[in-house]
């Protein structure tokens, strides 16, 4: 039986991905820093690890669990801190980069090294914001660009046979109606363009288990429009246009 490890699984997209995988007959290990994940795990009859991936000790706990028996890793945990760069708390910034950048890279490395059992799929949940500059959420957008870039690099590595058989899937969902928006202090909740996290989770879960196995999933109209804009507009125009637009949303 396949086991999947899902980070950031106490709420939002992570929880929905965990549910969608359970519904497809995959055993799930829920990882989150929110202690509520323990009661969720007992409710869903699955394993959990309560740890903070923005810290080294927390990340190590997850790395230890990736011992080859875990066949799917969904690197989904992420956070954002609203505000201009000059107002950011240095420690909060460091934690955020730890969670969004360091942890996914270390988890990916360990997962590949563990020579996982089939379907051996690494999912990196990036964001549609990976393609555009995100004023007032600068480090967040940058960390998402890092994740997309990492996933694409690993995907090519898998084609070159350098990933011990691990397949890499990068998911770039557009904004979803989850607690993430509130946690980041983003004034976005009333927007009608938000996707339902359970729909996004179903798409990702089906793609993980699909034998066709695509390596990139861009979900939602916002993300698709941004991606097209990035290709057709000059760099400076795209950056100013989308940057101002996104800043107004917040």
């Amino acid at each position, binding site marked *: 039986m396949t086991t999947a490890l899902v980070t950031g699984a106490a709420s939002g997209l992570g929880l929905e991905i965990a549910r969608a995988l359970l*519904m497809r007959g995959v055993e799930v290990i829920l990882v989150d820093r929110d202690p509520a994940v323990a009661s969720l795990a007992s409710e869903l009859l699955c394993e959990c690890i309560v740890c903070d991936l923005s810290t080294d000790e927390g990340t190590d706990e997850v790395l230890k669990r990736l011992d080859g028996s875990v066949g799917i890793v969904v690197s989904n945990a992420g956070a954002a801190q609203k505000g201009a760069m000059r107002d950011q708390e240095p420690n909060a910034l460091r934690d955020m980069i730890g969670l969004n950048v360091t942890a996914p890279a270390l988890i990916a490395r360990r997962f590949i090294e563990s020579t996982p059992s089939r379907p051996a799929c690494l999912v990196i949940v990036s964001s549609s914001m990976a393609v555009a500059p995100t004023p007032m959420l600068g480090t967040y957008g940058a960390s998402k660009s890092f994740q997309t870039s990492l996933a694409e690099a690993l995907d090519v590595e898998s084609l070159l046979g350098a990933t011990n058989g691990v397949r890499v899937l990068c998911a770039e969902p557009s904004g979803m109606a989850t607690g993430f928006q509130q946690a980041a202090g983003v004034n976005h909740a009333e927007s009608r363009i938000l996707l339902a996290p359970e729909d996004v989770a179903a798409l990702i879960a089906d793609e993980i288990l699909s034998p066709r196995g695509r390596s990139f999933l861009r979900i939602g109209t916002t993300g698709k429009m941004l991606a097209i804009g990035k290709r057709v507009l000059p760099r400076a125009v795209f950056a100013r246009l989308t940057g101002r637009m996104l800043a107004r949303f917040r």
Partner: protein
Amino acid sequence: MKVLVTGGTGFIGGETARSLAEAGHEVVVTTRAADWRQGGDMTVVSQCDLAQPASLALLPTGINAVVHAAALADFRHGTWHDHLRNNVGATRNILRWAERSGVAHLAFMSTIGVHDRPWGHRAVHPLDEQSPRHPSSAYGRSKVIAEDLVAAARVPTTTLRLSWVYGTGMRSNSHIRAMAGWGATNALARHAPVTGRVSVIDVRDVAAAVKTILETGGDAPDTGAILLAESEPAELRHILNPAATILKRPAGPLARSVAALLPLSLRALVDDSLVCNPERMRMLGLRTSHAFYDEFPLLLDTEGWLP
């Protein structure tokens, strides 16, 4: 023996629950309905949606065996998500519960539909338990995942792949009832030169097989998958048109080679693609005591299916 029958208010689960209760077992049935009052002396757990793990708390203790017959088979309106939720999610929950509560055996109701062959697959017949699993419907695909979960569970299990089931209390969307209704209202369907055959089984024989498995194989390790069918398949033209008297016309080579290109729903009409060889069932001592051609006319008379 104390037996839990999930979906025990349905067609197959209901017959199984009744037959187990008649044989003197203590039967507990689950249903999603709020109040179901035809339980007789069976214990009824209502409002029990097994896809929600919280429902497991409603199940009684001291259960020796489980018959997992609860499932969704909605070929018209059921989405992939609905089938996953009710057929895979619920199966996972009941398995985890069975592992925790020390159940001695779990019988899982699957379907011959896991052996469907989608477009372009050559029909291999008759089917047996080792035939490849290529489901073509969302229902069949969800049952394949559920079968794998059942096989991997840490309780002894038996997977029963039922062929087309007929009997009193059939649902309106049961294959046989739907086809009989189609034939009754559609002259083209009634008189089409249909040469296909399907394996069938009486619901009472299904219930008897489950009873035998639970009574004899209670502590045995996994029995694996068993196809349940009568040795004599039914001809589709007789389901479409019970009065058909045309001599049997075996499908010619042309019909057979064209058949491989058809989706299963059409191919089954000219081909024996849903006929299985119930060898393993016989070997395990499971008998059928009803025959389709004796029972079908009675059902047509008494059940009032036909418009």
